[in-house]
């Protein structure tokens, strides 16, 4: 291997490997700690021994104890809310994107800017005052309150519209000649052509909802309606919280989105490229 070739491949690989290692280590530590007795997490730290990162005893006790606290229900809530947000969000955002790309009407550009801009303003920025009103309406502790604010997504509308604009207009024209309604054109022509951007937009909504913290914290109170991250975070406030259970819960919360996003990553990266690259 020539020196040139070496530097060309070797240095980027080392840099990529180093950064990756730094970012993967905490994740590995999370996995290891979740599967060991709590006392083992801290036992080998002063002084540092290799057993600190190589588990000697493996157990599921942390998961068993955690799920006994009602965490299963909270994980269910998180999954349900995320899936509902994706399903409703994809429908609604694609409807809007269709109107803003396939239908000609006056002021379309202005409406497009207004809709996308307002959904780009992160919901969190007004979440705190809004939560008072939502609870005053008796909507605290409801799935409606958890799901509704996260469904419309500026990036999703933007992304789907970008894609819809590139669907050849002749298709829709021909269908209209044959008497197809706009709904029919949306449902039978545009949607079937848009699998990739729909998956990308769905992932965006899913990740947004899965990592939501502030809003679910504000609008839920009863343990049976709490989302998993909020329930888990509340352990931190307890005086002698069980770190083993924290890691077990953290692992469950991390592994679910990883299992979703890694197999679908090419759709995700493609949609990222479409929103972020001019």
């Amino acid at each position, binding site marked *: 291997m020539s020196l040139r070739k070496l530097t060309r491949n070797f240095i980027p690989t080392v840099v990529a490997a180093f950064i990756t290692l730094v970012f993967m280590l905490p994740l590995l530590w999370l996995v290891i700690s979740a599967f060991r007795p709590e006392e083992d997490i801290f036992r080998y730290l002063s002084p540092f021994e290799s057993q600190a990162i190589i588990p000697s005893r493996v157990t599921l006790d942390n998961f068993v104890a955690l799920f006994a606290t009602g965490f299963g229900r909270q994980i269910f809530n998180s999954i349900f809310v995320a899936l509902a947000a994706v399903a409703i969000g994809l429908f609604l955002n694609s409807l*809007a994107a269709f109107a803003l790309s396939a239908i000609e009407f006056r002021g379309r550009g202005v409406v497009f800017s207004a809709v996308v801009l307002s959904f*780009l303003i992160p919901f969190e920025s007004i979440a705190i005052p809004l939560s008072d009103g939502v609870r005053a309406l008796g909507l605290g502790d409801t799935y409606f309150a958890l799901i509704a604010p996260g469904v419309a997504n500026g990036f999703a509308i933007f992304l789907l519209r970008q894609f819809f*604009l*590139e669907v050849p207009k002749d298709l829709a024209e021909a269908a209209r000649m044959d008497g197809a309604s706009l709904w029919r054109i949306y449902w039978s022509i545009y949607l079937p052509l848009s699998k990739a951007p729909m998956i990308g937009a769905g992932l965006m909504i899913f990740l947004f909802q899965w990592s939501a913290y502030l809003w679910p914290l504000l609008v839920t109170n009863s343990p049976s309606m709490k989302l998993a991250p909020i329930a*888990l975070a509340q352990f*931190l406030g307890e005086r002698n919280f069980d770190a083993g259970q924290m890691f077990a819960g953290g692992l469950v919360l991390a592994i679910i989105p990883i299992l979703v996003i*890694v197999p679908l990553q090419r759709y995700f990266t493609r949609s990222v490229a479409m929103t972020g690259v*001019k």
Partner: protein
Amino acid sequence: MPVSNEAVSGRTKHSSAPRSPSKVTQNLLAAILFLAPAILLMFLFRLVPIATVAWDSFRSSAGQWVGLENFVFLLGSPSFRDSLSATLIFNLIVNPIQIALAFLLALAIVDGARRPGLWQSLNLMPVAVPLAVSAIVWGVAMRPDSGILNSLLAAVGLPNQAWLTSPEQALWSIVLIASWVGVGYWALFLVAGLHQVDHSLLEAAKIDGAGYLRTLFSIRIPLIRGTLGFVLVADTVVNLLLFAPVQMLTRGGPEGSTSFVMFDIYRNAFVFRDLPLAAAETFLLVLIVTAIVALQFRFMKPEGAKK
């Protein structure tokens, strides 16, 4: 998407303009129907809350009009000024660090690291981890007495650090917690941007004798400045609104060193129950965020949609 399609849609845009007046109204009606759910949500969860916050921020808790009193009080209060400066300092540190690391990672992935797909997949994993989990993992790792970070430092002969418990280090610790999930995410955007740079330009520069760094700074970075701008702006919005790690780990402390604006609003609303003050603070924040988001939108504007 291939570029040629853009030309098609650009051309048909004019030819498919509505012809008859009845078709114009028909289209308008259909557009309203298709847009109705999104517009309804836009009112419910953006416009109405923002208008309410604006209304409340000019009133006392009894609902009396007080003009700018809440804002005057806010801007004069040391606690707000502390939290504003903490937020700004945090953003001045965290955004450049995240973007520099993300850019380095993106360059390594694009510039012929062996198995780029592997590195990209691995780095995608922390991206999917919720910030609350990052706070838990790092919060336990950073314990001054029994955390693995100090244990590792001791193993290589370095002194123990206070991490989240010291006013000097807490903000930096939050930078670390936020960056663990942030860097991989922004690297995705930059990888996409770097891939779009025309390869023949880089080859031409090489033939003219330009080295790696010269090509990087004179050709590649200028060519992806749109992507860099988008990432910078989007990252800033996220970090301006950072909340979970502060609420979970530091509660704004020690000595107010991490009392970022979002947490200050939370405290004003739910601890001190000063709703007009929380409203005024939210209103200022929304104004700032809207200005930044408008900038972000400009970076997103596609060529075909330019007016």
